């Protein structure tokens, strides 16, 4: 059935059954791909489907193709043509809706395809739930990517089948999935609600989908993949949704947003706009902001004018729901503060970069000094620009990724053609680089492609000047002489500037401040041959960083391309991949485990070799450290190896330091006479019978452990047996009390003969500290004044959310209330971390980075904890303890359960709220006196073997023969 709109529509043949579904396929100048789209409908597993092709007056043969398909599949494919080109997707789709006969309607673009089961799955969902609208997963298929890259479109909306009575139940659906194509609509629903696409404007999907969502009485979401959105990355003529560089598009987008907002008001769901505002700040605006560094001033001005107008309609509360940098960018754009906005966009693109000088005011850290005192808007400015929580102020210069703005580029420079002159300025946030610092600089050129980085080339930075908020620099580099690429394989070279501050190095990338700043070719001499390229030119990466690119010689390049894609190239590439694979296999865990068992374990055991490890190598701490230090103190003759996880800093210099899982580590473990550890050596390593494993363990238990934990119990018998084998490696297991015997030893199913009732070596120092008054040296290191008492806050590990641990109380309020009397030390679990604002400086101190908690315990005049095992150790000091159990029900009952009731036996006040905590902290002496009996019982119950001689006992028992005669 071929219908031109000017002819009268042909009446439906009475015999043609009404199809369950109509798929409206729109096409404009896409004759080659149209048949694929249509066949994806004809090949559906659901048979009752018709195709309605609507051609937007193509100038190519699209309509002929459509007619041929209609002739080939009479009754199943229908071809229509608009009287004149509409220039968008709206008009043809609207026409399709009118022509569709199915109970349900779907939209498909001529360059995309439907998944085979899409119609059946949508129909099943629609009929079972009675939904007006069914939406499924869309997948963006990057058709010209090498590995068939696919990206799911907002997959979190489509993890499970879900039916909504109103879109208000899931605002994210309306806000994020604004496509019209991955959905199926009840046809009567479209007609009754007059649902049509707007015509003459881009982004018609946004308005249509918003309209459909808000009109639908019921919406069903299905996790099934229904729609493949084919994306062409390298296309010369980009499709509408890709051409966002154009102001016109942006104008359309803003207009559509305004219409959607109006629609939400009209439909009585204005509250959804808030969610849309948040998304606008986090996503829509970001897309455009990221382009700004690549656009000229005229574009920027025009863009800002359009954006500002819309930004005025954004709910200020929406700024709180975004990441700080989103809010900062939107705010600075509103203020047209270009000097601060462009650096902020740099951080938006390079998220860990610090691009503003930052300023500290009243104990908080702000993005910039401007706007904070604005008489109209200052409060809001302070709110948005406050970046204290990001913790920039707590990081040393080597941990900061500083913005380095390239301000000058001259190439070729001077007489020699191969020289380039560069100048720029590096941001100096909060004066992290002090005025008197010794500054050094070096430009580094390295090939971008991994695996071909055979060599880096360096050039000195001749001038460096401290200018307060920035460090200005200038360098001249003779690339023609100094940069020698191989050619072909290393076509792109990234540039970095390493800044030395009093010998500490921080690395920056060069950000071009304006488009067109860096241009001009320079000669280079590739090692391969100058035939492949003899010039190099600057280019700016998508992240805004300066790089250089070999300019390929066209003729030579064709030859090279042929080589790469021909037989020799294939051979070379497969050889390279094989070599890479072999290297990967050799370095893999399995190979190492085999090396350990089959090679190292056959070597003789070294009689005096001891391998120490604490918390999987994360720290030099705890009982292994205490034993090690006792062995050194007694001058024993032995070979010591300490394992570290990341960096060897902080580990003892008089031991051999090996990285965990390295070959030397495995070799040491295989040959050691003793393993001394507080957690676990790699589970897959079998211990040799000649080796003695002293497991010191790292704390008595409140929470259920080992085979008393649900996850352990749930394992199959075979898995439990495998777990048991790793525990049976322990030859000795240290216990502090009979409580440990009843809990830990039972939970690990240890035999009585392995138990060593000597107490914890780490706690010897605490027993001594109780008897010797006076502050340990760590007090001076932390700068704690003599007249202030020290409180230590050491909560247990919280798994929820990110690594970032939110303190459960207002730390500024604590400092204001108690700052004159107490210094609060905060120690988060090693898997969490905290950020303290500058306002509490010297009154609250983060001590999480200290390897060893014992000196901190010895220093503290009182302890605040919740469920951490530190309570059992600290009790030995007989000082006041506070239990701040704000999430007791959740932690104790919902979790894995506890061995005893903390509320009954806690040797100090158990409080649930911040106010109660502050009330209890009022007088340490009072609490100390009140709970002295409870503390005594607590120590008797949980620390009876901690008598201060644990390390000594262990040395006597295992290492006495190593004493020098």
């Amino acid at each position: 059935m071929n219908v031109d709109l000017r002819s009268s529509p042909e009446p439906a043949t009475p015999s043609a059954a009404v199809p369950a579904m109509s798929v409206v396929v729109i096409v404009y100048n896409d004759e080659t791909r149209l048949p694929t789209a249509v066949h994806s409908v004809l090949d559906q597993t659901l048979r009752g489907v018709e195709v309605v092709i609507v051609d937007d007056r193509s100038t190519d043969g699209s309509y002929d193709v459509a007619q041929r398909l209609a002739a080939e599949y009479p009754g199943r494919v229908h071809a229509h043509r608009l009287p004149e080109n509409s220039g968008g997707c709206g008009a043809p789709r609207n026409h399709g809706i009118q022509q569709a006969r199915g109970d349900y309607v779907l939209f498909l673009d001529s360059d995309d395809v439907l998944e085979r089961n899409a119609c059946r799955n949508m129909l099943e969902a629609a009929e079972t739930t009675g939904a007006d609208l069914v939406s499924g997963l869309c997948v963006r298929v990057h058709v010209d990517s090498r590995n068939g890259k696919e990206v799911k479109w907002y997959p979190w909306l489509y993890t499970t089948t879900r039916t909504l009575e109103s879109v208000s139940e899931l605002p994210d659906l309306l806000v994020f999935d604004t496509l019209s194509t991955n959905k199926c609509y009840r046809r009567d629903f479209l007609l009754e609600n007059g649902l049509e696409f707007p015509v003459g404007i881009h982004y018609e999907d946004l308005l249509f989908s918003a309209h459909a969502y808000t009109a639908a009485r019921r919406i069903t979401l299905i996790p099934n993949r229904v729609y493949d959105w084919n994306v062409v990355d390298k296309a010369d003529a980009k499709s509408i949704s890709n051409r966002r560089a154009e102001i016109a598009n942006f104008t359309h987008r803003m207009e559509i947003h305004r219409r959607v907002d109006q629609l939400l008001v009209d439909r009585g769901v204005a509250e959804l706009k808030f969610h849309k505002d948040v998304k606008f700040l986090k996503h829509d605006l970001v897309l455009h902001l990221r382009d700004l560094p690549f656009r000229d001033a005229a574009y920027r001005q025009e863009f800002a004018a359009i954006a500002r107008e819309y930004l005025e309609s954004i709910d200020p509360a929406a700024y709180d729901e975004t990441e700080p940098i989103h809010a900062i960018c939107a705010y600075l754009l509103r203020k047209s503060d270009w000097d601060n906005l462009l650096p902020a966009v740099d951080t938006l693109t390079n998220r860990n970069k610090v691009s503003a000088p930052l300023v500290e005011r009243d104990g908080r850290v702000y993005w910039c000094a401007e706007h904070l005192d604005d008489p109209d808007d200052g409060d809001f400015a302070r709110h948005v620009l406050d970046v204290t929580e990001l913790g920039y102020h707590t990081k040393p210069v080597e941990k900061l990724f500083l913005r380095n703005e390239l301000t000058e580029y001259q190439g070729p420079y001077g007489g020699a053609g191969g020289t380039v002159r560069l100048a720029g300025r590096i941001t100096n946030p909060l004066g992290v680089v002090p005025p008197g610092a010794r500054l050094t600089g070096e430009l580094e050129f390295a090939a971008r492609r991994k695996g071909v980085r055979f060599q880096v080339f360096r050039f000195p930075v001749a001038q460096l000047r401290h200018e307060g908020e920035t460090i200005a620099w200038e360098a001249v580099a003779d690339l023609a002489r100094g940069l020698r690429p191989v050619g072909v394989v290393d076509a792109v070279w990234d540039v970095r500037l390493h800044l030395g501050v009093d010998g500490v190095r921080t690395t920056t990338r060069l950000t071009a401040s304006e488009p067109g700043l860096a241009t001009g070719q320079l000669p280079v001499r590739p090692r391969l041959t100058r035939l492949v390229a003899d010039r190099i030119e600057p280019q700016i990466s998508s992240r805004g960083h300066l790089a250089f690119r070999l300019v390929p010689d066209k003729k030579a390049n064709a030859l090279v391309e042929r080589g790469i894609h021909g037989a020799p190239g294939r051979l070379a590439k497969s050889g390279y991949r094989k070599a890479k694979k072999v290297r990967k296999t050799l370095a893999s865990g399995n190979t190492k485990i085999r090396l350990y068992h089959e090679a190292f374990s056959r070597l003789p055991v070294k009689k005096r070799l001891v391998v120490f490890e604490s918390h999987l190598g994360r720290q030099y701490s705890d009982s292994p450290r205490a034993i090690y230090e006792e062995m050194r103190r007694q001058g024993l003759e032995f070979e010591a190896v300490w394992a570290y996880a990341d960096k060897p800093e902080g580990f003892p210099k008089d031991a051999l330091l090996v990285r965990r899982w390295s070959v030397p580590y495995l070799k040491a473990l295989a040959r050691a006479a003793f393993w001394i550890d507080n957690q676990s050596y790699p589970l897959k390593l079998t211990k040799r019978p000649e080796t003695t494993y002293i497991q010191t363990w790292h704390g008595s238990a409140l929470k259920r452990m080992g085979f008393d934990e649900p996850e352990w119990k749930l394992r199959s018998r075979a898995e439990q047996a495998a777990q048991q084998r790793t525990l049976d490696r322990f030859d000795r297991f240290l216990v502090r009390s009979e409580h440990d015997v009843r809990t830990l030893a039972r939970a690990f199913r240890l035999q009585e003969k392995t138990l060593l009732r000597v107490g914890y070596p780490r706690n010897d120092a605490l027993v001594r500290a109780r008897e010797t008054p006076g502050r340990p040296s760590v007090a001076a290191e932390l700068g704690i004044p003599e007249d202030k008492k020290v409180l230590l806050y050491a909560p247990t590990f919280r798994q929820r959310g990110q690594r970032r641990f939110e303190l459960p109380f207002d730390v500024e309020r604590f400092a204001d209330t108690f700052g004159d009397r107490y210094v609060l030390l905060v120690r988060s679990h090693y898997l969490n971390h905290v950020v303290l604002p500058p306002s509490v400086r010297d009154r609250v101190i983060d001590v999480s980075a200290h390897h060893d908690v014992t000196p901190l315990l010895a220093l503290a005049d009182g302890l605040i904890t919740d469920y951490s095992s530190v309570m059992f150790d600290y009790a030995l000091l007989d000082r006041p303890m506070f239990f701040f159990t704000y999430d007791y029900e959740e932690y104790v009952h919902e979790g894995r359960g506890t061995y005893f009731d903390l509320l009954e036996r806690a040797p100090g006040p158990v409080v649930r709220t911040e106010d109660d905590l502050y009330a209890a902290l009022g007088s340490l002496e009072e609490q100390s006196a009140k709970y002295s009996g409870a503390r005594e019982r607590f120590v008797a119950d949980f620390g009876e073997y901690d008598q201060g001689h644990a390390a000594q006992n262990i040395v006597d028992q295992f290492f006495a023969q190593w004493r020098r005669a």
Partner: protein
Amino acid sequence: MTPYPYPYPPRDVFLVANSVNELGGVATWTHQMARLFTECGHRVHVVGITPPEDVMELGDIPYPTTTLYDGQPPSPGRARDASMREKATLLTSLFRAARPGGIVIVTQVWAMEWVKLADTTGLKVIGMSHEAFEYSKKTSRFRRVLKHYADVDRMLVLTREDADLWIGQGLNNTSFMPNPLPFIPEEPSPRTEKAVVSIGRLHDQKGIDMLLDAWAEVAPRHPDWTLRIYGSGEDEEILRKQCTELGLDDSVEWRGRTSDVPGALRGASVFVQSSRGEGFPLALMEAMATAVPCAAFDCAPGVHEIVRDGEDGLLATPGNTGELARRLDTLMSDKHLRDRMGETARVNIQRYTTDEIVRRWEELFGFLER
């Protein structure tokens, strides 16, 4: 009860399993469905690939069965391939005899390897996985399901939740179909005996070790209650030893395997299930049909599909024996709660009656023809 006149067309239905009569849940289900389909006027044929190791007595059955191999098929390799092609021809000839609108239901993925080679033109093929997604994931069946069921007309699992998980793995033709209730006892439990009942093989998967751990926490608070453990199996000895070590010999009764499940349930006031893995557990359905409230580890989507936590039973985090003990304690301490949940359970479980499930199958057959 089959409605009259029966609103659905008669069809040829083939149920293809690893074995026609292998002891276990799948064969029980297969023959229950075969009987129900036959009663509805369908022409049913049950096909097995090989004879089973553990035979289940089928009794008189009103439909034919065929087993493709006399013994085990040759081990994988050329001989297996050749034999598979040969047996597939046999399947093809069975399938050819079907009237239009015929249905092939493959109950286990291994059998699909043969069905795939046969000519199923004109028939709709339904593949099934009778276990929870997460459980399947730990076995070799996971990859095989993804491979061999990729192109069937519909792949069926036990619950919506399981179906969504398979869809997430790219198996886009997946839907779900619950198992029917095996029986509705005439006489519900009076819930007067102070007895908690467990029924299941004494095998690691059923987690009786965890049940004993939980019982050790709850028993001291209820000295007048007993735990009756029905079932036998390879773990009996170690479980009895564990029971003795926990000092529970006075409150635990080892009842062995029972042929009278309704009777065992009538003597229960609470039913407990402590499995490590389940699919769509019949034991819970049977207990609920007998008006006995359940306490169970929520170890599979099928479990919370059957038991509505807090409404007609109580669920606990898998492996958390302390929590299971608290759930048991709640039910054992409160007769009114037991009565309320037990009666609610008996009503709620009606959504899985055979009539309802057969209707859903008929709707599916019709849907696949559209």
